[in-house]
């Protein structure tokens, strides 16, 4: 884990601007598929979310020109990508590396809150439930992407590493032993 919140990498502006030029709507399909797969493989995640599974979570990477809207309810789980802040019960905002680092157990949510790198607005209970559920799930986004890609998964490894190098955002889970 990073000793200092100041070490959180910020997405390079040209890269963020380039991503901002992509059409956002088509990104929702693969992201929804990824989330459904994560939910199916980690039933404890939804159990920990409890009643807050019905909430809409706006995940706002502050160094990206878009916001993700997560609706984790297993019955109709989906993700959509928006250029303007969408209506949601909860908004969780911070640098992309911090948000992904929370998923991977690289950062502590309270520490990011203390340092003001993470902003929570809306239903605080739902935000806590999501954070705790994800922390317990010990997810590895790179591994999930590889599983999603099936036989082509192994071929994704160099691409994932290249994106991580270019963006400064670690897409793999950090080993806690050290």
């Amino acid at each position, binding site marked *: *884990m*990073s*000793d*200092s*919140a100041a070490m959180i990498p910020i997405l390079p502006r040209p890269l963020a601007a380039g991503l901002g030029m992509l059409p956002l709507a088509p990104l929702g399909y693969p992201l929804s598929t990824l989330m459904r797969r994560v939910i199916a493989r980690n039933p404890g995640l939804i*159990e*920990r*979310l*409890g009643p*807050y599974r019905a909430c809409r979570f706006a995940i706002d990477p502050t160094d990206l020109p878009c916001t993700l809207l997560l609706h984790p309810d297993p019955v109709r789980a989906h993700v959509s990508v928006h250029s303007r802040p969408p209506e949601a019960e909860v908004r969780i905002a911070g640098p992309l590396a911090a948000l992904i680092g*929370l998923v991977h*157990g*690289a*950062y*502590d*949510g*309270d*520490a990011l*809150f*203390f*340092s*003001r790198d993470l*902003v*929570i*607005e*809306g*239903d*605080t*209970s*739902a*935000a*806590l*439930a*999501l*954070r*705790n*559920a994800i*922390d*317990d*799930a*010990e997810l590895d986004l790179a591994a999930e992407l590889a599983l999603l890609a099936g036989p082509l998964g192994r071929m994704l490894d160099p691409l994932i590493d290249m994106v991580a190098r270019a963006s400064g955002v670690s897409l793999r889970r950090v080993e*806690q*032993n*050290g």
Partner: protein
Amino acid sequence: MAEMMELVCPAGTPAALRAAVEAGAHAVYCGFADETNARNFPGLNFSRVELAESIAHAHRHGAKVLVAINTFPRAGAEETWHRAVADAEAAGADAVILADLGLLAHTAEHHPGLRRHLSVQAAAANPDAINFYAETFGVRRFVLPRVLTVAEIAAINREIDAETEVFVFGGLCVMAEGRCSLSSYVTGRSPNVDGVCSPPDHVSYEETDGALAARLGGFTIHRSPKGAPAPYPTLCKGCFTSEGVTGHVFEDPASLDASELLSALADAGVRALKIEGRQRSRAYVGQVVRSFRAAVEAVAAGRPVPPGTLAALTEGQAATSGAYAKTWR
């Protein structure tokens, strides 16, 4: 080499428990996902199945698991707390951490083989109180309130025949624990019965022009200027204006860090060191436990405690040695 003090570490989830064990915890404390424990937050804590699996995992790696059932039962609902004690014993818990007199009596009578620790929530802060709990309910270890100096802890240890455990890192409760009703006045809910101080469904944040306002029960209790560290939304760390003076009425937002006092605490006869933070992530648990494991090993070997690297994890990004070396303002 002196006997190593036991490191008692927090876990709010099975993943955090595994992180604590891997990082070198001698013991891990945790609780059920209900109002029987004092960290009853959404998405946190253990089901019965998770607890049994986690205890088995800890035991395979040589660590103990202590189950906190440390709120005060509601009249007429004692069965919930009784069942928690029975389930903790059935899951293989090494001890239960209790606060309520009635629950202590019930546990001593119905689960005599289950080791009993007294929670900080019971606020036993003098030899008379400790000896009463030890003699009446067979309590073996006492978690001391965070209001005592090292000299006072040493004096207590000289007059009791039981183990003491003290907090060394994490959120700093500055009140007489188990007696504090500040949160109740604003939210109608109490850490002592409901298991939540500043329940999150009463907390909201609003950022305006970079300044972060924290509200509890609709009252603004703290406003952090742009770029300034933010505290937990608790009344005791709130910042208020009265008669033209703005300040922290009870205590500045800061976390406890007693790492520099570990040798003194060992000399004072302390048996176990507790890290606060069941509501924190597995990243926090792993890093803090690794740091303190190195520290207690150093103390036991008579070496200097390695310098701390935990500042970024502290509330308000500030640390204090709390009451252990307190100079009251």
